[in-house]
């Protein structure tokens, strides 16, 4: 098992009513971890691959295929709207 530091932002943070949490997992890829999170309940559907959700692994934009390491940080957020 590894620990992943999960971060949620903007509308996703509000939907989950959570900005960060530590998650113990045997998942090795972002895709696997995302599947686990989707299984936690209806609110987590906001993280579905069908939704316009972006992800960053250790603060760099990533894809589902990215590999998780113990202690890594995985952020979920909607498409950005700064500037």
């Amino acid at each position, binding site marked *: 098992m590894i620990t992943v530091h999960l*971060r949620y*932002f*903007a*509308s996703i943070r509000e939907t989950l009513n959570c900005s960060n949490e530590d998650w113990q997992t045997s998942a090795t890829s972002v895709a696997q971890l995302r599947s686990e999170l989707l299984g936690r309940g209806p609110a987590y559907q906001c993280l579905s691959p069908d939704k*316009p959700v*972006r992800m*960053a692994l250790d*603060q*760099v*934009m*990533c*894809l589902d295929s990215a590999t998780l390491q113990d202690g890594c940080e995985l*952020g979920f*957020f*909607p*498409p*950005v*709207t*700064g*500037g």
Partner: protein
Amino acid sequence: MQARVRIQTEDFDLSHEIDLLRKSDTRVGAVCSFVGTVRDTRALTGQAHDEVKSMALEHYAGMTEKSIEAMIDEAHIRFDIYQAKVIHRIGELAPTDQIVMVAVTSAHRGESFKACEFLMDYLKTQAPFWKKELGPQGARWVDARVSDDAALARWGVQTLP
């Protein structure tokens, strides 16, 4: 060397920032800058429900700075520029307030014009900021614009889908 990226709640002074950039380097013959401000969409559409009373800006601290630093590195590779500086505000803002500033110096105008636009196009779609507008019907998150992705695509930048 001045900090290239600042994220702050306070306002900024464009003239002061440009002075810092041009007065520190006698090679500079051109400074190009862009300032983005809070728009009240009602003033554009005439629709009462489009009113923007205020705006709240959230960001991903740490990733924001890293991503903009990487964009500035890329601008230095692509364009013959001397310095680039980005200031982006977070927190509560009101219509007409300044949100973001990009300023770039170069020997001649062409390179700083291009680099300034490149940095803004990049920032709009890749820097982790989110805007929430407060209007007559309450708060709503601003949707990302497809045209912003297209603006970045024309520079040939490889980004994740």
